[in-house]
């Protein structure tokens, strides 16, 4: 009887736990607004961005332009205008329009020759008495550098009246590849990021070393005052660690203005908290034995520290510092978004301008630099410890 009761109780407990877990997942499914179907429906919208992000705009060539112009009269006046004579060499590009006068929406045929072969271009209208141009059909020249475009006369030409220009323009890239503007900016800014992170790691580390001794159980005396200092220091580390770097960066961006300095200050605080805790734990794990042995040789206090303590703490402290630099490079790309300087700041601007191929350069640069830092810092740490 007793045995069965127990089994029922156990079964009941399991059922309760399963029901509880199920309830939690239903709740979180709703809270997270899970709509997996959107992944399929929305895919076409994301295609453009993803394609652009996979095609970082790394290099450019200087652009060359070839242009030729003729005229059209709209509406017809009876005395057709004569096209401006081609003043250049007879080899130069030329464009003709048929008929030479027309009304709005009348079909016209524009043909050109003497252009750069197999090159894409565009037809423009230059309405009489106006500065701007109207964009019209795109075309591609054939192997002989000729093209023909059928289009209609824009109503604006007739409104303006008189003789308007017809311009055919082809564009192509030529010359040597050059680093693109986003690539040049990204390189400059990612270097800024790495050194901004180095500065923050150094400042934070310098402050964290003495604090770490105050936060090490084996160093602080077990007196009420010692316990209080230890508790306060550890509490400080924990509280500071729980504040998001992005919030600190926002505060400092308001305090000292947008830019790398705000980023350095925010990262320094992050570093103090994080290294302070890691250093404290390293200091707590030093062995008493070597210190005892050096003391027993008749060494003085300084000698005991230099020969018994320092060799035990310098390698882990150095390893943690390099690791923190690596982390700070990562964080600084994020805090750049809120005005902390570095590559994150330009990345945010390009995202806001929807220049995805430019943003892509910064994204890939961050990936490469973070990976490199991670790899080298791991190798250096291996060599030290």
């Amino acid at each position, binding site marked *: 009887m007793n045995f069965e009761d127990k089994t029922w109780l156990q079964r009941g407990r399991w059922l309760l736990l399963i029901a509880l877990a199920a309830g939690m997942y239903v709740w979180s499914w709703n809270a997270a607004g899970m709509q997996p179907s959107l992944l399929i429906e929305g895919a076409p919208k994301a295609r453009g961005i993803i394609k652009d992000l996979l095609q970082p705009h790394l290099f450019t060539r200087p652009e060359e332009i070839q242009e030729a112009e003729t005229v059209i009269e709209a509406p017809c006046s009876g005395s057709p205008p004569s096209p401006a004579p081609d003043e250049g060499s007879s080899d130069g590009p030329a464009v003709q329009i048929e008929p030479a006068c027309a009304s709005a929406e009348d079909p016209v045929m524009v043909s050109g020759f003497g252009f750069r072969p197999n090159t894409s271009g565009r037809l423009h209208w230059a309405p009489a008495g106006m500065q701007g141009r109207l964009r019209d059909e795109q075309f591609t020249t054939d192997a002989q550098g000729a093209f023909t475009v059928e289009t209609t006369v824009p109503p604006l030409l007739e409104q303006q009246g008189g003789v308007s220009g017809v311009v055919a323009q082809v564009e192509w890239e030529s010359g040597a590849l050059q680093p693109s503007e986003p690539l040049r900016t990204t390189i400059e800014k990612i270097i800024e990021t790495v050194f901004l992170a180095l500065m923050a790691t150094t400042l934070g580390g310098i402050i964290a070393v003495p604090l770490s001794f105050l936060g090490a159980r084996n160093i602080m005396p077990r007196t009420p005052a010692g316990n209080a200092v230890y508790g306060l220091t550890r509490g400080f580390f924990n509280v500071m660690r729980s504040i998001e770097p992005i919030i600190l960066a926002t505060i400092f961006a308001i305090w000292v203005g947008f830019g790398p300095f705000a980023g350095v200050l925010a990262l320094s605080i992050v570093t103090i908290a994080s290294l302070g805790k890691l250093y404290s734990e390293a200091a707590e794990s030093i062995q008493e034995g070597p210190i*005892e*042995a050096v003391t027993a040789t008749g060494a003085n206090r300084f000698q005991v520290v230099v020969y018994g303590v320092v060799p035990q703490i310098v390698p882990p402290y150095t390893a943690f510092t390099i690791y923190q630099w690596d982390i700070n490079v990562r964080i600084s790309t994020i805090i750049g978004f809120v005005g902390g300087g570095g590559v994150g700041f330009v990345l945010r601007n390009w995202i806001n301008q929807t220049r995805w191929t430019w943003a892509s350069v910064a994204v890939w640069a961050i990936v490469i630099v973070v990976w490199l830092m991670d790899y080298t810092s791991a190798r250096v740490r291996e060599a030290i410890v």
Partner: protein
Amino acid sequence: MLEIQNLTKIYEDGTLALDDVSFTVEDGEFLVVIGLSGSGKSTLLRCINRLVEPTSGRVIWDGEDITAASQEELRKIRRQIGMIFQQFNLVKRSSVMTNVLSGRLGYVNPWLSLAHQFPREERERAMHNLELVGIAGKAQNRADELSGGQQQRVGIARALMQNPKLMLADEPVASLDPATSHSVLKYIEHLNRDQGVTVLCSLHFLSLARRYGTRIIALKAGQIVFDGLPEEIDDHRFKEIYGEEAVQVEVR
């Protein structure tokens, strides 16, 4: 001559580690201290060079009261007392050479030593001592790359740098296998016989104590329960020291 007079140590948590211990060690003796774990062997050895401060009693060495010495006097005394440890207590990340040289810290210019500068003759002395213990080839290795037996020999070389008149050995072979134990104890025996260094050595195994000791002291619960020659420890004495259930285990 080393005189221990009414030495008592009570730790902060109330543990009575040494209870009114008195004995005398003549120069040139190889005195082995035996007893169960927690019987007070380590505390006794550490009270002699004051790595542990005795609660009461006196330690007098060559007429000088170590227990009453100032910090500066204590450093001068400590540098003549070598010490080796069960866990070797080397600085693992430092080189063997640096570990050995640290044995000389009580003698060299303290300021230069802080910059890791040692005179040429001290480096030569260190090499010589490493040769004595047979590991001169490992001088530039990191200490933790060595085997346990090799690390203990580094510990001995470090103690030799002090030109010690007295050697305290706290369970020097408890972390080593039997063959290595003998080779390490033979170095200590050699110091004792050929260079006249007085040795106080705590050991776990009675067989080792009999083999190397010229005299044996047994501690039990912080008190001396035996003080005599190795051959005087018979089955009856053994059970007194180690308890009724104990069985002798030999290390050959």
